[in-house]
């Protein structure tokens, strides 16, 4: 059984990973490795030169000469007149802005290829179970045809801060508001003097004295613009509770427009604060929770006897949730990686699905009949057999991620570009985008080349092995 499973090689398994410039599908290609035995009757080698000449000329002048030139150029300063040795390289590793770009590239390399490969694997395995697999694959694959610039514009729209514009925040605020009904009175607070009946404790507003039975609790707040409450109902005093087993009171804005009014007393022009969460605490524990009515009154009925303080928890005073700041300095790199995954997951899925279709069905079937669970089949048979394809996808993604440029350039707003910066972008910025330092630019380009060098060797080794 084991032998047979290892027999047919998954397509893609013997492919070198071809990392191409950004935007390009870095397609691994299998080598057919033909039998090239004794050669007879061939054309003269001179003819080969004629066939190869245009290609070699272009490759020599546009690719190989620049590598040599860049090595020398990177040893000179920005004007190109003064030899500075390895100073440009040293400053890559000392300058704090280039260190940020290196840190970002590390994040990219660690996170993006892994997620893309794992998602590709999951989608490839799951699409085998559905009838509309072709449609699904086309949908996921489609972003690969789209320019990274267009993908960048698409995700700038997705990540718009305003939940009325950006679909990401629109979805998140809807979900958030379903689970939390905070009205939000940011800035509201009690007066900070001895007469004020309540004070701030750890973000919440708590009454200073325990409530007296039958006596309404007054919680006057300030710090809100009266304009905000133009349409709110006037505050009312809570009716005293005759039976004495309840607890009631009023939360209101103790400010009269244009001045006047009595402090800590409900004046007729003053507005009640509706929808505030109110908690009754006894011995530090919450015994009951209620909400204020439109006129600011609240009422706890049937509280067990005891001494209570009233607390308005912090949630009342936090700003209404307005979505996530995707394009701020903190989340910018994860946000761009999200867009990158959107672009590349389909590529991984298609390659892995092709590898999957080469796995002999009866091997999986036999394992299932032997009582293996789906997870065991996946873990013990599918994944090991797919390992070569997974490696090719992963390596291709690493090469691609090292050169990531367009998405960062387009998605990161100018003000956060220093925080989102990556090596390929910094290289462009330093040499063409206003930096004017081609010595440094060349050093960064060579640095980038050194980073992909291991994969160059990986490709060559793979090819030579397959050719044998």
């Amino acid at each position, binding site marked *: 059984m084991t032998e047979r499973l290892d027999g047919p090689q998954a397509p893609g398994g013997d492919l070198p990973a071809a990392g191409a410039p950004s935007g390009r599908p870095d397609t691994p290609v299998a080598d057919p490795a033909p039998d*090239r035995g004794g050669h007879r009757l061939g054309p003269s080698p001179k003819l080969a030169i004629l066939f190869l000449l245009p290609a070699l000329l272009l490759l020599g002048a546009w690719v190989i000469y620049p590598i040599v030139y860049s090595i020398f150029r990177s040893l000179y300063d920005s004007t190109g007149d003064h030899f500075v040795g390895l100073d440009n390289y040293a400053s890559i590793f000392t300058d704090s802005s280039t260190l940020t770009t290196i840190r970002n590239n590390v994040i990219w390399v660690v996170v993006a290829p892994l997620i893309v490969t794992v998602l590709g694997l999951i989608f490839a395995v799951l699409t085998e179970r559905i009838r509309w697999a072709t449609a699904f694959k086309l949908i996921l694959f489609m972003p690969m045809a789209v320019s990274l610039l267009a993908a960048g514009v698409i995700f700038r729209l997705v990540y718009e801060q305003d939940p009325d514009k950006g679909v990401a925040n629109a979805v998140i605020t809807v979900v958030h508001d379903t689970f939390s009904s905070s009205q939000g009175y940011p800035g509201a607070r009690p007066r900070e003097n001895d007469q004020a009946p309540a004070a701030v404790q750890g973000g919440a507003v708590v009454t200073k004295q325990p409530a007296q039975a039958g006596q309404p609790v007054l919680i006057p707040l300030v710090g809100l613009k009266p304009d905000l409450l133009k349409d709110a109902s006037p505050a009312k005093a809570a009716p005293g509770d005759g039976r004495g087993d309840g607890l009631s009171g009023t939360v209101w804005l103790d400010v009269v427009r244009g001045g006047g009014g009595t402090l800590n007393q409900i004046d007729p022009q003053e507005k009640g604060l509706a929808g505030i969460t109110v908690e009754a605490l006894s011995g530090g524990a919450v015994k009951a929770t209620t909400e204020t009515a439109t006129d600011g009154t609240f009422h706890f009925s049937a509280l067990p006897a005891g001494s209570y303080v009233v607390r308005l928890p912090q949630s009342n005073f936090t700003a209404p949730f307005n979505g996530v700041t995707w394009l701020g300095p903190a989340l910018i790199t994860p946000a761009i990686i999200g867009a990158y995954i959107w672009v590349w997951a389909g590529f991984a899925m298609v390659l892995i699905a092709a590898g999957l279709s080469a796995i002999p069905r009866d091997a999986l079937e036999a394992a299932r009949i032997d009582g293996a669970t789906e997870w065991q089949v996946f873990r013990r048979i599918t994944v090991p057999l797919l390992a070569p394809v997974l490696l090719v996808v992963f390596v291709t993604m690493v090469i691609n991620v090292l050169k990531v440029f367009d998405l960062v350039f387009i998605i990161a707003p100018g003000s956060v570009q220093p925080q989102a910066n990556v090596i390929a972008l910094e290289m462009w910025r330093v040499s*063409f985008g206003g930096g004017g330092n081609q010595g440094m630019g060349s050093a960064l380009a060579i640095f980038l080349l050194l980073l992909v060098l291991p994969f160059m060797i990986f490709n060559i080794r793979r090819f030579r092995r397959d050719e044998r």
Partner: protein
Amino acid sequence: MTTLAEPRHAEAIKRGVFGRVVDRLGGGAIQVFLVLVAVFWLVPTLGLLVVSLRGETENNSSGWWTLFTKPAQITFENYSNLLASGFSSSFWNTVLITVPATVLVIGIAAMAAYAFAWIEFPGRDAVFLVVIALLVVPIQIALIPIAKLYGFFGIFGSIPGVVLFHVAFGLPFAIFLLRNFFVGIPRELLEAARMDGAPEWRIFATVVFPLAKPAIASLGIFQFLWVWNDLLVALVFADTSNQPMTKALQSQMRQFGTNVDILAPGAFLSLIIPLVLFFAFQRYFVQGLLAGSVK
């Protein structure tokens, strides 16, 4: 297999019934999950399309998804404004860059690939290994030196300069793909033609090239998409009068937010042709990815 427990038939059968129930339920969950994923992948592009079809005031006051409840918002004004503003010239620049860059790569790479596959010459394997090595070279390495070179020859900023850059950096992949296809062509076909005394260029043109159509189609679509979608090369080597759509749109990014009525239709126009090509030729696209199957 060896790691799994021994077969126990009674259990296997029991699991058969139970397993089928689980599969049903699991199958439903998989359907739902994949539908959600598909929606997740479609929504961003759909958003771009809808935004491009709404007026500026609508886009500033409400989300694009409100279009589905108020379809009357649809307008083509953004597109007509965009085309009137001279965006069409950058569209033609994109075409003028992409078509020659694709045709040249196919022609030049096919010749080289033919030599690598079917003409024996000393050092062939070593030279081909160099081509493979060049597959991963980042284009950043060439930006500064080629800019200098173009300045020297006076083609900096011109369309031919951009085209040649794309051709050169498209070649390693193109040669690699085509050479691997060519070596798979049956030797007898070529030898028969050589026996007949056909000159090598005619064998190339009449035997190999027609046989290689699927590989050339794969290569063509890759190269076309790569060049059409390129931003970096255009950013450095194309001046404003020769800039393709990507560069024209990039220059609008700085004011993002105030000019969605330009960016959204522009981005959509730039992606519609690649998308149509992709759907028309997706078979070759996938084949190109899996070139191993074209043995």
